[in-house]
């Protein structure tokens, strides 16, 4: 039985959402079509396909896709599907090839997805089969665009362009790139995957939920302090403690960061200050930056310090630490979160080491931070199946938003980021997104 529009219209209220948004498989199916099938979804970074023939495979919602670079240097996002009988063509996470070849009947495709060879093609003589007919190609998705190497795609032909969609979040991408002395970042190595037994929105909502850290991450904060307190007096604060400690920051600290929300469900916390503001300097970095940009510009670049920019629904970025977490919904209660790590091209390698240390300590399935979040999402996913729980609240600091043009500013511990996500969610799901 499919979910009625009437029921769908009633799932989001101004200060709460119905549990079906997290638990109902029909709602999930509609999300894949109406939200993930229309919004700009993060695919990958151009540095992952530097050379002609390089490709990566991923998903847009639940659609398997390939990001490839052809011989002319152009990048493509193609459905990872053979035009013959629909088999997935590329199975590896990444690779390099001169063409894509379906392992079933041997149809092969150029790197831009056009059909190249059909074996024993005489069988198609005197039929209406046409090599040029797009239905027999690995079809390109409706739209793709990139900003500073970050490739996004939309499965819908209509909608805002990427720049309009990204809005104020574009400054997070720009800032991360500008933190390189040559203004460029590149992906380093493979991703760190983490499978969640919960709905994708629980992960996304948590990123700008600043009421949870002092509770959910209290234990690792306490444990870290206990160990650091045992260090000899005058010993420098270990990098690990610098990274973990702010997770136990006070409510007041997080309120002061503020939460900024914008159209299409996006948001970020902080701006000039964040949980990353107090990291110690890495030798040689400032020098390399000043040589490139001059002191004034460097001060401006490094003064931007955002905490978890969410490009709804798929992409989350930390400009100051050069880590992206990408959200891949698999089923209504299954979500893959992939962490990707970026090198600031031209910066000392120790900057990358800090990026890696951060992600290991916070994002890893074996960290002492991620598993506590994971567990809380799973508890919600589990309990929301029960008949006693129908609504999920999001009314903290409602009515205290201030407008700054397209951006809405709220205290850091407001639920405004969630309310803003559900405003966008509702627009996508009821067909009113512009």
């Amino acid at each position: 039985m499919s979910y009625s529009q009437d029921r769908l219209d009633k799932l989001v209220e101004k200060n709460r959402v119905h549990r079906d948004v997290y638990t109902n498989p029909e709602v999930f199916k509609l999300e894949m079509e109406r939200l993930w099938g229309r919004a700009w979804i993060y695919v990958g970074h151009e540095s992952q396909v530097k050379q002609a023939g390089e490709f990566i495979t991923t998903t847009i919602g639940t659609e398997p896709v390939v990001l490839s670079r052809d011989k002319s240097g152009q990048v493509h996002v193609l459905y990872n599907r053979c035009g013959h009988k629909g088999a997935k063509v590329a199975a590896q996470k990444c690779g390099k090839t001169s063409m894509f070849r379906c392992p079933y009947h041997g149809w092969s495709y150029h790197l831009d997805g056009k059909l190249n060879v059909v074996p024993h093609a005489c069988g198609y003589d005197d039929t209406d089969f046409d090599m040029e007919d797009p239905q027999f190609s690995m079809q390109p998705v409706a739209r793709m665009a990139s900003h500073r190497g970050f490739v996004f795609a939309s499965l819908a032909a209509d909608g805002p362009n990427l720049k309009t969609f990204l809005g104020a979040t574009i400054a997070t991408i720009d800032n991360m790139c500008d933190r390189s002395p040559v203004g460029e970042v590149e992906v380093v190595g493979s991703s760190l995957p983490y499978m969640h037994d919960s709905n994708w929105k629980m992960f996304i909502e948590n990123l700008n939920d600043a009421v949870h850290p002092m509770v959910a991450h209290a234990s690792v904060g306490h444990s870290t302090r206990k160990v650091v307190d045992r260090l000899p007096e005058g010993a420098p604060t270990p990098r690990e403690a610098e990274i973990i400690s702010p997770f136990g920051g006070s409510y007041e600290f997080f309120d002061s960061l503020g939460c900024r929300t914008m159209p299409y469900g996006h948001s970020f916390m902080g701006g000039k200050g964040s949980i990353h503001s107090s990291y110690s300097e890495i030798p040689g970095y400032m020098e390399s930056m000043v040589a490139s940009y001059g002191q004034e510009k460097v001060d401006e670049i490094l003064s931007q310090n955002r905490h978890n920019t969410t490009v709804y629904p798929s992409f989350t970025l930390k400009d100051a630490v050069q880590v992206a977490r990408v959200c891949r919904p698999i089923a209504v209660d299954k979500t893959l979160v992939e962490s990707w790590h970026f090198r600031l091209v031209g910066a000392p390698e120790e900057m990358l080491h800090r990026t890696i240390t951060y992600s290991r300590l916070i994002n890893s399935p074996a960290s002492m931070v991620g598993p506590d979040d994971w567990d809380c999402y799973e508890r919600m996913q589990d309990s929301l199946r029960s008949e006693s729980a129908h609504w999920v609240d999001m009314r903290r600091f409602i009515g205290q938003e201030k407008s700054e043009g397209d951006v809405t500013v709220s205290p850091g511990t407001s639920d405004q980021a969630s309310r803003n996500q559900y405003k966008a969610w509702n627009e996508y799901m009821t067909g009113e997104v512009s």
Partner: protein
Amino acid sequence: MLAASKKETPDLQEIEAFLYRETDLLDAGNLHAWRDLFTEDGTYWLPVSPDQDDPLGHISIIYEDKMMMAIRAENFGHRLAASMQYAVRSSHVLANTRLLESSADGSEIVVKSNFQTMIYYRIQSVYAGTCTHKLRREGSDWRIVQKRVDLINCDADHKSIVIYI
């Protein structure tokens, strides 16, 4: 006597007994005593890629020094951690232990073994692969300079891993 010039061959049985003691401490959830088996510069490494050669410039699932081991020992079973409100029980089986390298005097060695470990944490999971121990002789006992665990599914989509493997 030739003893002075003869290369010391470490006793494999003694090494195995040490490795069993190490995994026994993990199986008992005694992370403080387990940590004490490491040298001051000791590290534990759980790579995310097969044949990964860099713990600093490439992401790993775990790469921890003795300070991080101390934090993890404090955090293990912490009453405020949502993820720690469940039993964590494991059972390591080690086999095929072989000596890969030995310094001339036998005081620093590298041993590799195969393992299969069951971890019961909410559900029962199987982890398998090899562990490579770099050991240093300190007094009459061995100490771990590095324990590297290569899972055969290191690059799989793991759920939470809340204890060293």
